[in-house]
């Protein structure tokens, strides 16, 4: 009889531990799902975006974009038909969602207008390039990092940009 009671108590204890473990698991899962990226336009200042278009008309074209101030940035075309070109432009950045920012600007180099939407949760970007006769829809991916002191000697950029920047300065 006493033996049966001990077994019963042991089973009860085991069930309680399993129950607590499941509750813990549920809480962790719920917290994980609730965890979201929240980005502001000012978070981009002093950062460099490295972007590559992976779908659309400019597949394989990649860029580095230094966000200099809340309304000025400089892009460098690393590959693609604009390779070697660089331009400092005025931009507008709008927060369109918790993890989504949209940057729009006009390029003097090409005369086109760009509206690029960045999802900082998936690290994917969606661009609409407006040209005189037609619009292009593009999709790509990007990374973000601090624009660090390396910019002074431009060692983070390919050689072809160093001459361009030195000439401009």
């Amino acid at each position, binding site marked *: 009889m006493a033996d049966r009671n001990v077994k019963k108590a042991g089973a009860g204890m085991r069930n309680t531990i399993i129950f607590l473990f499941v509750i813990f698991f549920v809480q962790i899962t719920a917290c994980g799902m609730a965890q979201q990226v929240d980005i502001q336009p000012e978070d981009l200042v002093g950062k460099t975006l490295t972007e590559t278009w992976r779908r659309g008309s400019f597949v394989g074209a990649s860029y580095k974009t230094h966000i200099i101030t809340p309304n000025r940035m400089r892009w460098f075309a690393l590959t693609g038909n604009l390779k070697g070109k660089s331009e400092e432009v005025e931009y507008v950045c709008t927060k369109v969602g918790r993890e989504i920012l949209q940057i729009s600007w006009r390029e003097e180099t090409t005369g086109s207008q760009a509206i690029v939407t960045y999802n900082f949760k998936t690290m994917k970007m969606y661009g609409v390039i407006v040209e005189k006769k037609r*619009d292009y829809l593009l999709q790509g991916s990007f990374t973000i990092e601090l624009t660090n002191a390396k910019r002074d000697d431009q060692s983070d950029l390919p050689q072809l940009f160093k001459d361009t920047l030195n000439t401009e300065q």
Partner: protein
Amino acid sequence: MIQRFFCALLLVLVLAGCELYTTHMTPDQLIGQTVILTLESGAFPDSTMTMQFVSSKDLVWRLSGNLGEATGSSDYLVSRINPQTILMAWRNEEHEVSYIVTMDFDERRCFLVRADHGRNLLSEGVVAIE
């Protein structure tokens, strides 16, 4: 056994609850719908854009307010930014302007950029499905 059943049930309910709080919208779900953008601030306050999605490529649009008064039809480009947010673009060939609209169906907010002869004119407002 009963405890395990209730634990599993609890887990399912929590996960289902998380899912319920999120609106999911795909470009396909827009087809056959009429979406109304009521712009409140920026370059086009007090303006309305109505878009009727006829197919996966065509839409009929109507503008009113300081966006201009016009009606027409266009091809459109569409992309899904996240489960709640859809980006689309279309051109008004007659006036040579493009409209780029980002719609957050969870927060019911919309963001419009009109690419207008070298200028990007931005406006923000509310999105609703009629």
